[in-house]
């Protein structure tokens, strides 16, 4: 894989991680709700 593609892939990891937070939060709302 090229260097620039790897950099974009590393950015995408943080993006997917943040997106999965919102998804999981909606699927399993905290007990206070």
């Amino acid at each position, binding site marked *: *894989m090229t*260097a*620039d593609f*790897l*950099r*974009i*892939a*590393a*950015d995408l*990891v*943080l*993006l*997917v*991680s*943040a997106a*999965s*937070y*919102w998804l*999981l*939060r909606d699927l*399993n709302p905290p007990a206070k709700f």
Partner: protein
Amino acid sequence: MYLNVMSLDAPLLALLWLYVFADYWDVSYVDPLLAVVLPLVVWLIYSVDRLVDTSLHKECEFPIRHRFHQRHKKIFIGCIAVVALLVAVLSLNFLQWSVVQSAMAPVAATVGFFMLSFFSEPGKRVSYAKNLMAGFAFAWGVGAGLVGLDLSMNIFAKLLSREMLCFGLLCVINITAVDLWVKGSSELDADLDEWALTLALVVLGLFCMLFMGLKVRRMDDPFYVAILIATALMYMLNRSR
């Protein structure tokens, strides 16, 4: 690709994680001005870093984003001056003073990062100290503004909280991984570089599991599961690159 080349990827990620932390820390109101100033500051730091890199180490071969900054140096310097002025005006006149005060921790980490950049040897391929500063400057930058908005939070407790340490470690691993994949380290060979990264990812994964099991007492805590997902993705990238 364009976002990466123009240094817009990190500001957008900072904004995204600002809202993740706001939700996780129960910050009821996020000042829209903070959501404007934070990406501007992140863009400023990334752009300056790329221009400094290309000016200090002229003999090195740089990736496309650095070459883009060098090619359009004058435009970037102009934009940096305008954004710096805008950030100064917004921060000193409109942003809550507590937010500006709480930003001192990430500012200190950023200053440390630039000091290391200025004094690092040009031939050195991966600087772990520099990446540590950069990772935590980014993570604390995301969290510090929120602490300033909610005065009931203790800044030291929040910036050294379990979730912030996990996110900071993820950012450090992310930055170091790219360096290792592209340049390799001076100290280790390619196999050991891969193992060094794997070990860091395993430690982060273990911390997340421990915090979920022992502290949050919820094995489906969305924050730690999201960090675990990032850890798994980084592991897969590390193996398949």
